[in-house]
């Protein structure tokens, strides 16, 4: 049954979407068919229909929106919108005071102009739907809503709109704009020698092509991707099960001084991560304390984080990450375990289940059910874990067989090296888009298959 629910979910989603679109289209057609002259007026000039219904304030606001939009278009909006396509045509020459186009600024203002247009279209639709609703209301023998009633609604039935208005604007400017900017950069030649005042141009999917079809880069990309997936899976598993094991251990009745023992992982958790990483880097450095004792004991120094130390460095990375992350998993598991049903364990014991069977059939499903979203967020966090290898192996810029990356770099580190160290902004943006696609697909698939999604009602 659960499988059937899972299989029908995407289909249901698309069917609902199609139905909604059809419904909107029918409503729009009805509006066109039955709308009176006031509706028609508001379709041409926003707010005029409202004014004809004596909704002066509302009408004036809509009129103001349209006037403001036209002024914006005339002054800068139209130019910004076109600039999004051209990205400039005149190169600046500051030597002679010749002002030119700044492609990057044009890209940003172009995206902003699209956002403004989307907001305008939304308000236009609200204007038309509002006037048509007023027409229907009047035809039903009621009076048009007054401005006071409209405002009252904004604090009552439509309160969510009032509350969300400013955050949505903020999200558009501070989230949508940079994300769209980054996505679009992936389709330009911005970076390398092409930085303002030179003009940037659209190059389509060329950057993605370079990543997957140009010899050395393809090899580097797939090597890093493979290690990145292994790292994300391994580190998530180690951190999660490490934390769970620690929580179970410290939950045992036989453990004395639980508060004392819990103090140490919490201490590791409380110390800023980068200090821990620098500490580990020092410990495992070529000339660090561990090598000191090895050489004092008559052995040869081991270059744990050296240029040639692929697997030792990777294992140390996993260990450092576990050191930093296990305490938080432990705290999470401790909290969840405190809600476990003791009767089930009692029943299991009576039925003869041993400790492992109790863990496997009772504890694990219960904890995994409650923490699947956390595991996913940890997986995404580990997939994009920039800090560990940035701190541990900052001295090794590149490794044999890799281009502009070393053998412990994750995609996020490669992205950083490409974008920040080497100014290949467009390639960096393409990598970040690929990371986004990979992590979102994996998260979605794992979540859909997880008990949290498929057996939502189990523990309710």
């Amino acid at each position: 049954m659960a499988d059937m629910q899972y299989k029908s979910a995407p289909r249901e989603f698309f069917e609902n979407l199609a139905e909604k679109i059809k419904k909107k289209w029918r409503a729009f057609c009805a509006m066109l068919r039955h709308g009176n002259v006031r509706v028609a007026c508001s379709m041409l000039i926003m707010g005029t229909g409202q004014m004809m219904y004596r909704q002066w304030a509302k009408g004036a606001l809509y009129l103001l929106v349209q006037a403001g939009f036209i002024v914006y278009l005339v002054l800068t909006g139209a130019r910004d919108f076109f600039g999004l396509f051209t990205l400039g045509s005149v190169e600046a020459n500051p030597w002679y005071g010749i002002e030119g186009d700044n492609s990057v600024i044009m890209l940003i203002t172009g995206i902003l102009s699209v956002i403004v247009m989307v907001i305008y279209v939304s308000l236009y639709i609200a204007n038309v739907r509002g006037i048509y609703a007023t027409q229907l209301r009047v035809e039903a023998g009621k009076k048009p809503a007054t401005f006071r009633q409209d405002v009252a609604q904004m604090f009552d039935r439509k309160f969510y709109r009032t509350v969300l208005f400013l955050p949505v604007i903020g999200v558009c400017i501070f989230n949508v704009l940079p994300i769209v900017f980054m996505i679009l950069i992936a389709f330009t030649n911005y970076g390398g020698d092409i930085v303002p005042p030179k003009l940037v141009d659209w190059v389509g999917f060329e950057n993605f092509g370079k990543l997957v079809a140009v010899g050395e880069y393809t090899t580097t990309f797939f090597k890093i991707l493979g290690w990145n997936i292994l790292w994300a899976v391994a580190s998530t598993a180690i951190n999660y099960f490490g934390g769970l094991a620690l929580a179970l251990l410290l939950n045992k009745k036989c453990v004395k001084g639980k508060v004392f023992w819990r103090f140490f992982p919490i201490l590791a958790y409380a110390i800023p991560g980068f200090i821990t990483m620098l500490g580990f880097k020092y410990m495992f450095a070529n000339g660090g304390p561990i090598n000191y004792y090895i050489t004092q004991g008559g052995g040869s120094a081991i270059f744990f984080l050296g240029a040639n130390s692929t697997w030792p460095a990777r294992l140390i990375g996993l260990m450092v990450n576990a050191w930093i992350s296990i305490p938080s998993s432990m705290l999470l598991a401790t909290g969840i375990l405190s809600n476990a049903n003791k009767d089930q364990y009692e029943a299991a014991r009576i039925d003869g289940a041993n400790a492992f069977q109790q863990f496997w059939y009772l504890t694990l499903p219960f904890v995994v059910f409650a923490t699947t979203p956390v595991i996913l967020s940890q997986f995404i966090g580990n997939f994009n874990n920039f800090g560990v290898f940035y701190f541990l192996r900052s001295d090794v810029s590149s490794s044999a067989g890799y281009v502009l990356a070393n053998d412990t770099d994750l995609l996020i580190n490669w992205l950083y090296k490409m974008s920040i160290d080497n100014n290949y902004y467009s390639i960096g943006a393409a990598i970040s888009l690929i990371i986004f696609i990979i992590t979102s697909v994996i998260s979605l698939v794992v979540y859909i298959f997880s008990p949290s999604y498929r057996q939502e009602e189990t523990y309710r």
Partner: protein
Amino acid sequence: MTKTLSLFLAHAFIVIALITTFGVLGLQREEQEAQERFTGVLEENVTLRILDNDTAKETGYLDELLAAFNAEYAQYGITAVDANMGAYTDLEKLGPAGYGPDIVYQANDVLMRYAENRHIQPLPAESMEVYAEIPSEAWDAYQSTMEGTEYTFAVPVNVQEPLLYYRKDLLPENWQETWDDDGNGVPDMVENWADLFAYSAQVKAESNGTRYGYMKSLNDQYFAAGYFLSYGAYIFGQDETGEYDTEDIGFSAGESYKGARIIRQLATVMDNNCADDTITTSAYELLGNGTYFATMTTPDVYESFIDEFASSWSRTHRDWTEEEVDAYVRENLFMTKVPALPVSGDLTDREGETMEMTVMGGIHGYAISSYTKSPNAALAFIEFATSEEWIARRCELLGIVPARTDVMEAEGGVAADVYDDLIADRIYIMPGERAMTQVWASFGSLLRFIAEDGLRGGSTYDTDEKLIAAMEALDAEIYSAIHTLS
């Protein structure tokens, strides 16, 4: 239906028409006339923001210079102030936004990268008073041909090249008998790399690894490049106009593998830290307390070594006065040209022929931001700051090697040695190409590989053939990093 639909479409048409009309009109630009910026007429009542390095600020040199300039140009209302920005402030990012400095003092590789995208203004160098006082070899670092015209982008102030720092008081007592084969009164270990290598091995062995001879981070590209350049390597080829060709990468050129072999050999007389940055950061303290006998760095940090040496010496000689300590450390900390390399490229070859070492160097200078509103006042500032009086003062306070010949002649000593190296082409001026980022990344990693191989006595780079292959692979890697994505 017709009414509502037609007015809806009319609205859509008006919006589209507005976007199209004003979009097309907005992107059209009037043809702008090129304006000559250096008219010779000083802009009056303006403020110039000067970006100088941290040492100039710490020693009080910048304050002195600004005060003197402001007094001289008070009649025009021109005021120069500290830009109050980090020494490595990126004009490329700040300039176009309008809040960068008017004048920047930086190394030639940084300034020439700015020049590439016109962020600094070409200067009328030949008409400046300082022009004749600076050798053409120094001007070359700031000249570039763009679209058929040769421009000069900055005025050279300071020549940088690696020098050997060593502690005279750590020399063996009988060095004149045992370490002065040519009897010239100069210890062999500061004259020849082969002798320095032998001496380093001896110090390390005798102290059981608690003291060292020569120590320097071997992964430091700037200082390590010299070993390769000396045996025929180059970074980028140059065309007949002197412009760099980033497609021609020459780390494997000539007998550069000998330089790689030297890196590997040097690692054996150092400690496990030689393949990372540890030695560079601790060299001041460890040369000061006598753990290291010698290191290599640039002349502008001489005072930092003196401070650490004095501090360390004071701790162990509490009965000495400050003046006595200062006199002692200045008498015993020596800064000299880097030693000569064996022609064979083998540091165990103490009897063979030697040759002068070519080193990676740079030239710091003043440039004018293209975004300054006061180019003529800025030019006046540069004329003032590069005058004989102020360059001499800079030498005095900062210990730099001046690019001005007259000041260099007055200074003598190490300054003259550096100047000789510049004239004799033994300083390879760091290219100002943007692609240097990719060069340093790959080169630095290879240096670390080789040094670690030397340390562990590995077999990855133990033959000339393997080193040659590594150098060729390095060229290919750099080429790929620069050109595949461009």
